[in-house]
């Protein structure tokens, strides 16, 4: 059964058809949520919430790319979570010592726990390096570059997914790539061998 028939059946209330669509797009949705939220548990919750919202909002689907429509649900769910984090930050500004119930004066807790380039080099994890650079982008730029470069969506789908015109997508992709290029300068040596050799030639 093709996607159009599955979508039509899902709109009519067929949960099995909708679940087949979920299986087809859940990896993409989860990865997008993870790149947006930088947390696996939050990404899992957001993905589940997005599919739940998608099923309840199937009547608002007006055709076109169903993948882009699902990614729009994921994006909106991630935006909601990011706004919730801004309203309710979980990291206290002044940690309290559990023993004497006094504020800790040592600034050790202020140290950035995220890996620096050297640590990332030691860990050898390209994924964390990229994620670290992605976190440096604003939400609007991050979602666009993740969709285009990480998930491989075309501009038209991204335009549908975030509800912005194509010109905005082009501009945001270019500016996000420029920022990522500058950020990834310190991680070039983390790149696989084929990239490093190429970088060496280019540099």
């Amino acid at each position: 059964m093709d996607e159009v028939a599955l979508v039509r059946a899902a709109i009519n209330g067929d949960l099995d058809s909708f679940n087949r669509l979920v299986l087809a797009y859940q990896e993409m949705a989860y990865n997008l949520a993870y790149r947006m939220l930088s947390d696996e548990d939050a990404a899992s919750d957001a993905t589940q919430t997005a599919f739940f919202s998608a099923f309840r909002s199937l009547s608002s689907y007006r055709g076109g790319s169903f993948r882009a429509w699902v990614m729009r649900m994921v994006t909106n769910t991630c935006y909601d979570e990011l706004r919730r984090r801004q309203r309710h930050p979980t990291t206290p500004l002044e940690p309290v010592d559990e023993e004497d119930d006094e504020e800790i004066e040592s600034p050790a807790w202020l140290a950035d726990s995220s890996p620096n380039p050297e640590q990332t080099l030691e860990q050898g994890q390209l994924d964390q390096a990229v994620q670290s650079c992605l976190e440096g982008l604003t939400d609007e730029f991050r979602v666009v570059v993740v969709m285009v470069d990480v998930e491989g969506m075309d501009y038209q789908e991204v335009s549908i997914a975030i509800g912005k015109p194509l010109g905005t997508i082009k501009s945001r992709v270019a500016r996000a790539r420029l920022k990522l290029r500058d950020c990834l300068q310190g991680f070039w040596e983390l790149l696989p061998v084929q990239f490093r050799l190429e970088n060496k030639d280019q540099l």
Partner: protein
Amino acid sequence: MTTPVSPDDWELLSAYLDGQVSARENEQVRLRLEAQPELQRAFEELRRTRMVLRSVPRKRVPRNFTLTRAMVPERRPWSRLVPSLSFASGLATLLLVITFAFEFLPGLNNSTQQMAAQAPAPAATAALQAPSASDSNPSTPNQGAPIVIWGGGATGMGGGAGGGSGQELPNAGVMATTPETGIGGGPTSAPPGGKEVVPTEPAQVEGTQSPFSTSSPSIVSAPTETPPEKSTEAPAATSTPAATSAPALAAPLTGEGPILGIRPTQEMGKIVIDQGADQTSRELTSRQPTPHSTSPETSFISGHLVAIQIGLVVLALIAGLAAFYLRRRF
């Protein structure tokens, strides 16, 4: 390592890398890349950046995100009516407010009464014009019972103007007594030369007492030289009701007279009964709509308005409660 490339070129290169440029732009970028080494370097940096992003390992989903029946309650056909019921309830409430505003707001209420009064208005207008028509017909009973309608449009308070014209135009001819020219006539109806002017309606001229004519002959030749007293008397003479006698023509402007609603001095203390005029006036009074009277059309509209309001209240309540119940239930 940073390449001095303009932001526009960066955007163009980025779109070119993704194949999101037109054929003409594609050819232009290709030629520029061959000619400009710094642009070629920037393009390579862009391409490598994208390659790195695409080489990021994909996360495996921790579990399937399929939905179960327990997570999603089965949608029943009744649940689809909730939006329609909510909309119907809101619309009924809005219309109810509009009908209340239509009923209670002064401007809208007046317009309603005016709508209701439009039907009898032509009849009243016809009644207002009836005297002149009846006077033109000698066989009518009101032949000798002229009617004076004070403030009645074109046939109304033209007396003042007529008097004025009499003063300023001593050579004015006959003060035509046709209803169209008003009592005493107007400047436009006073032909020069002092000639006799036959009114357009001969019935008013010959023998019949026009509503605005006095007991003197209907056709009055104005003297070539009008004495000042005469001209000053003109307003009183022209403004005197037709039923008054000739001496009223000489009544001075002493605050009495029809303009002020007071009989001339000569008639004070007398009982003047004008059966025809009184009867016609009663007819006119009965035909003219009064602000407080309720015409059948008004009662018809108000009766239906109440019915509409009751229906809207019932519809809003039923639809709203049904939508609320279905939303809570499903």
